[in-house]
């Protein structure tokens, strides 16, 4: 199941293994709905699998291409289900604190989650691409079709905003 022909050939299975948790994390961060995130993740991989022959290196890395597909699927889902209200709502608790979690860590975590609610959809999207999907700035630039510099600047602005919100 090669993703592309030529020197940049990679099997789809290898791409799947490498990216599955991150695609799910990104989609779930965007949708804030585990069930919908599972559907969209499966849909994104299926689309990518069927379109793997159309991949071209000029579109960026395999990951940028795959996350582009996942993003489109997630945005389509958001539009379809009109989840705007859900986006702005309190984020779902994606993991319970362990017994050995320190209290200050738990507090810090809650503060970050609370700060995240102050972000708009585009800012949340960028944060998800960076920290949930684990993409580099250049890959994010390919996914969003903007320059790498713009990605860096926006990312810094959002992080600064989050840091301030956490400290307030």
């Amino acid at each position, binding site marked *: 199941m090669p993703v592309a022909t030529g020197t940049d050939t990679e099997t789809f299975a290898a791409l799947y293994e490498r990216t599955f948790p991150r695609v*799910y994390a990104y989609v779930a961060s965007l949708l804030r709905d585990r069930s919908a995130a599972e559907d969209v993740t499966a849909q994104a991989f299926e689309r990518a699998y069927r379109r793997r022959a159309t991949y071209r290196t000029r579109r960026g890395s395999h990951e940028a291409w795959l996350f582009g597909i996942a993003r489109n699927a997630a945005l389509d889902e958001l539009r379809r289900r009109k989840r705007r209200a859900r986006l702005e709502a309190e984020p779902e608790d994606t993991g319970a604190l362990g017994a050995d979690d320190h209290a200050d860590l738990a507090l810090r975590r809650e503060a970050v989650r609370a700060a995240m609610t102050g972000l708009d959809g585009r800012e949340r999207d960028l944060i998800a691409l960076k920290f949930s999907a*684990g993409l580099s700035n250049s890959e994010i630039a390919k996914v969003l079709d903007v320059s790498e510099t713009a990605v860096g600047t926006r990312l810094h602005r959002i992080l600064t905003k989050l840091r301030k919100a956490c400290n307030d």
Partner: protein
Amino acid sequence: MTDESATIERDLAAVETALASGAATHEEPLARELQELALQLRADAPRPEPAFAEELHGRMEAGFPSTAGSARARAEAARARQQTALKRLSAPRGGRRFARSYLLPIAGVGVPLALIVGVIFAAGGPSGPSGGDDDAGGGGGASEQAAGGSGGRGEQTKGETLSALPRESARAGDKAAAAPDTAVVPLEPVPRDGNFAPGQANRKIERSFSLELDVPLDDMARVADQVTAVTNRHGGFVLSSSVNSGREGGGGDFSLRIPSDRLRPALRDLAELAPVIRQSQEGRDVTRQHVTAKDRLQAARAERRSLLRRLEEAATDQEAEAIRQQLDLVAGEINGLRAQLRDLRLRTDYAVVNVSLLVAGDHDDNGGVGGSFDDALDDAGGLLVGFAGVLIRIMALAVPLALVALAAWLGTRGLRRRRRESALA
């Protein structure tokens, strides 16, 4: 680099370092805070349920099979049936790949191009280097009409028929049989006055025609005599002529004046003498000069009448002498204007017809098979020019269409993107 951009770069580098190492160790407190935030955001990323991961992994390994009864499953079944049918019909796999890789794109480009070329030819066909000459008389007429519409200015129009597209006229074809290598052109119709300026029969048109006849050397003297005979028969006259029928080379040139109303039959008779290899015609509207000269002549005559009356009533010798001097001047002017009108009338009543007799095979404009290297070069040049003409016409249609298609595609793409992104707004 400004302080702000330096800070941004430092902070982003700190974040990347923290993500790579998994620790927030920057010495700057603010950068360290961002590092901690980045690590926290990454740690907070949702994780898939093991059951879901297992199920999706299984589907991936099976090649994402469609659910039975789903729309996708039905579409896949239909596609499979189509492919099976194609397999039976088509050649080996390499052939199908070739067809998919090359024939389909070629067909995709070729069919619209063929349609465009068809439309161009259906709309009148491309005018190559000689294409616009087919309606030389008509073209001249249009220009003349335009000149007439702007007050009868003395505009010059020219229509020329070249032998780039050799065709055989019915009459000349008989002659051509005697000289098979000779290319002949049909005689273009002579425009009547109405053709030069439709609806304005009083226009004064000065015309000139040129004919080149293809004459065998042995026949040169006979044809030269007949040129003179035809001219006389139609009431014209030979202004100048030169004929050479020697063995070392021959030819002839005639400058004829033929009454405009007899021009058509005269040209037809001349064209019957030998195959026509080239002809050109020129028309010049001199109506304005004619009208102006006529008006000035009338005014001069009126002035003369007035001066004559004043002369009869002159009281003194001095006064009579002064009037006589004026009368002399006016008489001179009248004579000049009369001469001008005569000249104009002669030029418009008689057309100039230049006939050149060329020895068969000596001229190199025949474009026939078996010509010299220069002929081949000329033909190739003509073909290239014609091809470029067609190409330019195709481009004139295809380029705007392609631009419109590109704009539509970009617009649709941008619109779809904006609609998608609106989910994040």
